[in-house]
Structure formats: C-alpha cells, structure tokens
C-alpha cells in the first residue's frame, strides 16, 4: 500500500497496549468521521479508518473477495445481459448494473468515508480485536477461521464486514449490516460451529 493512501497510524480504545497518542487520535478519528458523514462524501478527502485498522479491514475484504467464491466472478455482467433485451423501461433504462470493485485500498477508502460515526466506532472496535490477535500478519486462512469463531459473539464484526461488502460491491451502503455482511459472517459462524470451516478455507487455498 502506498504511503499517500495509507492513513496516519491511529489506534482506538479497543486496542490493547494503548498509547496516549493513540487514544487521542482514535477519538479524533471518530469525531472526524461524524463530520464527514454529515457532509457529502465528495466534500472531504479525509480517510476515516486510520493506520493498521485500515489494513486490517482491507485484509478482511480480501478474504471476503476469495471465500467462499471469487466475489467479482459472480457479479458485474449485467450490462452485457441487458444489451440482449430490446426493451425500454423507464425505471431501468440507462441504469448500469452494480459495478464490482476489487478489494483495493482506494475502494476501501471510498467506502469508509461513508461510514457513520456509530458504525465507524464499531469497525474500529472490530479491527482492534483482530489486530490484537496479530491477524494482520497471519495468513488469511487464520483470519477467516477467527472470524468464524467470533462472529456470534462480536457484533462489531458485522459493521466491519459491511464496509468490506461496500468495497467489493459499491452499490451497498457500508452502514448497512443486514445484507451480505450478515450472510458471510453467519456462514462462517455456522461452519465454525459445525467444525467445517478450517477444512474449507484450507481447500480453497486461502493464505
């Protein structure tokens, strides 16, 4: 990730080994996000998710993009399909299908800028929990297994997954946790309970 894209290193209250600088920065980040939410997204270039949290969320997004399926492979062909239909309809004509985006830093930054303060706080909390377990540097396989084990108990993970969904499918609101974020984490949680998650992510070749 390039330095110009990476936000400044800031930690939040959920992070272990907190520093005074981190606490202040985290609080400032939440406040900034609230301001950004109130203004049109294009009015600010500020990045809502700071530092390692950003990288952690990006890593979750990359896991979502690969497991259980390659996310982009099932989306994004609607425009081609529409061309085959010689019909006009006022509510659809001219509409593009929901474009897919890669699990990229710019995509995540765009999604994160739309986060409302409450959701941002939850994303930070979730990211901090994952960072505390060192999952930023562990294989994606370990990250997905951990998400499965925590999905039932840690509701903040839903907010984090929603940002990932909005990154991969920008049609989605990153504050909306009832869609694929819930499906994905629910699926991981069930697989964890059924003791099938580790084998499945291993066979999918997640690293």
């Amino acid at each position, binding site marked *: 990730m390039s330095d110009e894209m990476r936000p400044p290193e800031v930690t939040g209250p959920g992070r272990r080994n907190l520093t005074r600088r981190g606490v202040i920065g985290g609080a400032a980040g939440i406040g900034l996000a609230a301001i950004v939410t109130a203004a049109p997204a294009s009015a600010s270039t500020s990045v809502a998710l700071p530092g390692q949290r950003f990288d952690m969320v990006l890593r979750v997004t990359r896991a979502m993009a690969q*497991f*259980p*399926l*390659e*996310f982009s*492979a*099932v*989306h994004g*062909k*609607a425009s*081609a*399909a*529409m061309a*085959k*239909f*010689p*019909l006009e*309809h006022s*509510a*659809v004509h001219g*509409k*593009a*299908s*929901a474009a897919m985006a890669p699990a990229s830093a710019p995509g995540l930054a765009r999604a994160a800028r739309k986060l409302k303060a409450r959701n941002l706080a939850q994303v930070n909390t979730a990211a901090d929990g994952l960072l505390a377990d060192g999952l930023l540097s562990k294989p994606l396989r370990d990250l997905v297994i951990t998400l499965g084990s925590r999905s039932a108990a840690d509701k903040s993970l839903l907010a984090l997954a929603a940002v990932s*969904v909005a990154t991969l*499918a920008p*049609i*989605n*609101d990153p504050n*909306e946790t*009832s*869609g*694929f974020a*819930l*499906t994905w984490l*629910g*699926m*991981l949680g*069930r*697989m964890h309970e*059924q003791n*099938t998650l580790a*084998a*499945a992510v*291993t*066979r*999918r070749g997640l690293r």
Partner: protein
Amino acid sequence: MSIHPEVRRALGKGRDQIWARHGKEPNFTGCGIGYRRRGGVVTDEPVVIAMVVDKLPAGALSSRRLIPSSVTVDGTSYGVDVVEAGPVYASGSATSRSPHDIAWETSITDPFRPMVPGCSIGNSDILAYGQTPGQATGPLQSPAPAGTLGCFAQGPSGQVYVVSAGHIMAGGFNNNWDTNTGNRPGSVVQPTTDLGNIVQPALADQSGTGSTYTAPVATADYVSSLDTTPGSLVNTVDCGTAVLKDASNSSTSVAQGLMQPISATHPAVGMCIASDGEGNSFLTRMDSTMQTLGMPFLGAQSDTDWVQAPVVGTNIEKVGRTSAYTSSTVDATDAIVTVNYVDNVVGAKVPVTLSGMIWSQYLSLGGDSGAVACAGGDGHTYVLPPNALCGLMTSVQSYYALPANPADNNLTNKLQSKMLTQTITGNLLIGLVYLNQQTIIDRLNTMTGPDHNQTTAQAFFQQIYDTYRPVLISMLTSPSTFTLTPQMATDGMNAWGMLSKAPADGGQGLLTAQETNAIYNSIVAWLDVIASAGWTYQQMQEWFDTPAWYDGIYQSIVLAPTIVAP
C-alpha cells in the same frame, strides 16, 4: 374473445374424434374446447384441448396412442393442444383442518347460523350405511368427506334446500346401499329419498376443535344419478339437495362476505366438483344443474334465472370451504372428462365420465366441491395445490440441511399464488420450475461435490434461509412496504455463484455452462439492475407483466437445450 359458434361446433366434432380414439386410454384425462397455450400464455387460436396425465415424447408412444396435432372437421383442420391434467378426483376433503394445509389460514370451516354459501358441510351418516351393509345404524368411525354449501334453492312448496355436489350430499360415491337387501346398486347409482343427515360444519372439520355442531341441519334427499358405464356420455351434473330442517337457517349472503350473492347481475356459471393435484379444476355447468334440480335459486323465479353459460376466457370467482375466495378463468368448455370417485365402501376408485364440463385452473382444491362459481373476479386470484412442489422442497431441504418446516410448503405456494401467478413472466418461471423439477431433484440427489464445498454451501444457504424467510413472509403479507435492496441483490448474486460456479472455484457446479448463461442473462443479471433502481413490489410486478421482458427471458432460456421450456 368468445369462440364463434360455428367454430365451436366444429371443434366439438373434433373433440369427439379425440375422445373416441383416446378416451379409454389410462393416460388420457379428457378433452374440451378452448384456446391454445404457448409458453404459459393463452393465444387466440381456438383448438381442441386434449388433457393427459403425463405428456410423453412422441417416440415413447405408439402411433395409435399419439394424440394428433390437428383434427379435420368438414374439410377444415383445427389444432389440438395437449396439456397435462389429471388424474381427476371428485374433490371432497376427508382431512380435517390442519395448520399444514395450504389454505388453513383462510379455509371456511367455522359454524354458520344461519348457514351461508361457501361454508363447510358434510353428511354425518355415511358410515352408518357404508360400514355395515344392510344396517342403517352404527358408530361413525371416520367422517364423510367435507364439501361446500353451494347455494340455496326454493322448493315448490316453500321448502328451502341446500344445494351442493352430489358426492358431498351423499357422503361419498356409493352410499346408496339397498338397506333392505344389502346389495350394491348396479351401474347406475339410484337416488333415494333419505340419504342421511347433513351437518354444518362437516364432521371432518369438527374433529379436535371441541365443536358440538353434530345436530343435523338438513336431510339429504336427492343425488343426481351417475352412469358408470365406460364411455357413457349421459352424465352432465353431479349435484344433490338436502331439505333444511329450519328454513330460517339460511342466508344468501356468501360466507365472510367474500363474494357478492348469486343474482341476475352476478350469475352462476358452474359448480366445482373435481380437481387434480396439479391445479386443474373441473366444474359442471350451473344452468344444467339448476334445470336438473328443477328449482330456482332462493329468491329467483325460475330454474333458468341467474345462470350464465360458460364462455372460454371469461373470469369466474367462487368461495369454497378449503380455498375460500379464488378467481380464475374458464379455460375450456364442453369438456368430456374422466372423474374418479372414491367408493367409500371398498375404497376403490370408480371412473365416471362427465361431459359438458368447464376446465379452469387454480380455482379449487379438495373440499371445495359444491362451491358455485359466478361470473366475475379478476381472473387471477389463485389457489395452488399444496403438494405440487413437495418433492422439490424435500430435496432442497435435504441438500442444504435446512429445517423440514411444513409451513414452507405453504409459503412457496403463497409466493406462487400471490405473486408469480399474477404476471406472464411469473407464470413462465413457475412453468420452468415445474417442468424441470425432476431434473433439479436428480441433480441434488447426485451432485453433492467435495465435502468442503458442500458444507460451505449448506452454511451459506442456511444463513440465507434464516435471513430471507422473514423477508419473504413480510413481502407477501405487506407488498406495499417491500423494496428490493442492493443488499438483497448482492446476496442473490452470491447465491447464484454458489449454484453455478464449478467445485474447483468454490461453487457446486449444479448447472451446465449453457444453463448458467441462459439463466444469468435472462434473470440473475437483472437482479443487480432492478436492485440498483430500488424497485418496489409493484414495479417488479409491472415489469414481470411486460411482454418484451417475457420474450427476452423465453428466448434466452430456450438456448439451453437441457432446460425444458413451457
């Protein structure tokens, strides 16, 4: 869109040709006169409609059994449209109301005083006859089939009669034992003057409810004859009457106010008497019924009042004990149909040929027998058979380890009847599922893929089930509040990926490449589009009723040779 009388006469001759040639074949249900259907859409071509239990490919039939694509009458060729219907059964219901029934929420099984058209009735004495021939008394071990009070008629001496289907009044097909000799009647079921007591609601609807409405409200006194001679075409009605014990125990207002009463401006067209398990309903003509009874409707002057001859394509509506209010269309008239009656003495089925019948679809279920269908309604307030997709549902539940919730059958039926059947594209989708049902079941039974893929797919669809079952219920309950969201589209696209992607890519590979392209291009891709537009339920329905959209889907689907198109 009525059929010209001369064409109808010619088609009648063509129908007779088809009946003469195929009427006795076990796979042949009947034939009538209507319009050709193509891809689930009614065309304007008048044809002979041939009904078969299973449509078989031409190669699987001998030339003698192959139904011709046309018939020639007086030098003119007319088309023959083969549709699937049957086997057909006289549709009383022997089962009590159950929360697993399709129509349990709306079935009309409550007591009514005064009694009204549309409510449940049944013969309470049938087992006293049937169980022990020669003895008119005995314990009731199981109730007679429940049916529907169709209407009231005025007797010549001022008596008021309940009118319903004959097999409901008689408590079954063959209760007419000669109580003196114990002999069964011959080929013709003879009417008698005392066919037992009628109760309301039917005993079948009183079991387990704590109700005590066993006191008779009427005495069955007439059931029309049914000639069981193979090939006989004399049967045109299946009706019966019971004289009320208290004439004031009658109201012409329809149960729960679900329909206007029968009148000169709301004339009666037919009486529901039979159905199959696939949504086909068969009615006898109401003008013939009233003339057979020789009595007018209660409040009318003559037996020719307040009736209307059936016309193909017109809307009809009825209120019945099982499916309550429904509306459909007259899809064929002048039909000759083999109806199976159950002999409740020995349990055997007795095939009886009825002619002059009306064919409709999704109008009635078992227990609606006797309900009178009147001209009117929107023509598409349907009821679907409860078990039509039972096999598919069971396979899907097993494949994804989903809960075997019997109420889900009810839910899928509602999805069909309340939403999909209301549009031409929705009907196409229903047809696609029905016609390809066995293929889907076969694949689910054999293509489980690697364990890790299967467990992933199961967890994924279990979560989808938990999330979207309440959404579906909400949509069907309050359509005006439903909007398709981007979240739903994203979930839908991923679900599609699960089904279609190869196992090596994490999917289940349940579809061929051609099927994947066809279904994606015609249906799935649009989910993204209409979700981005934030469509409401009403917008979705309007679009589903757009011919261009229908055509687009149809043309895409037929590109996949393994998909059977309607």
